[in-house]
């Protein structure tokens, strides 16, 4: 459910390329939002050191995992409510 829409059959090469690009932009934005959000949730902003400590690292791993789940849940909700885009 991570990718919001598979490429339907019977599209031209140009359309497929354009869709692939849109798909990629979507993934890039997903990644950027995830990275910003998990930084906000997990990292100490006083910057006492340049390293991530153990607590921050495990928080980040869990944060990514939970964000991914939320992404999947919203995808399912949307695909249940209406036909794919």
């Amino acid at each position, binding site marked *: 459910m991570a990718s*919001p*829409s598979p490429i339907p059959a019977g599209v031209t090469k140009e359309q497929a390329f*354009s*869709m692939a690009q*849109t798909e990629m*932009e*979507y993934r890039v*934005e*997903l990644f950027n*939002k995830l990275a910003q*959000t998990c930084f*906000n*949730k*997990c990292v100490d902003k006083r910057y006492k050191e340049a390293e991530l400590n153990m607590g921050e690292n*495990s*928080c980040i*791993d*869990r*944060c990514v*995992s*939970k*964000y991914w*789940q*939320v*992404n999947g*849940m*919203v*995808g399912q*909700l*949307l695909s249940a*409510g209406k036909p794919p*885009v």
Partner: protein
Amino acid sequence: DQLQLRDSLKMYNSLVERCFVDCVDSFTRKSLQKQEETCVMRCAEKFLKHTMRVGMRFAELNQNAPTQD
């Protein structure tokens, strides 16, 4: 309509971000807890209903566009 697809993907990403930020605050486990899931589902539904309502109002205003207020 490529533009429209891109927009709906943008909206989708904003929705995920918002509901995650508002609903998930504990990172002692790697799976969502029950009440986090409930919160996310309500948040997502509420945001979709909100967006549809705003869309309707927005369309009305755009129709009477040339002069407003």
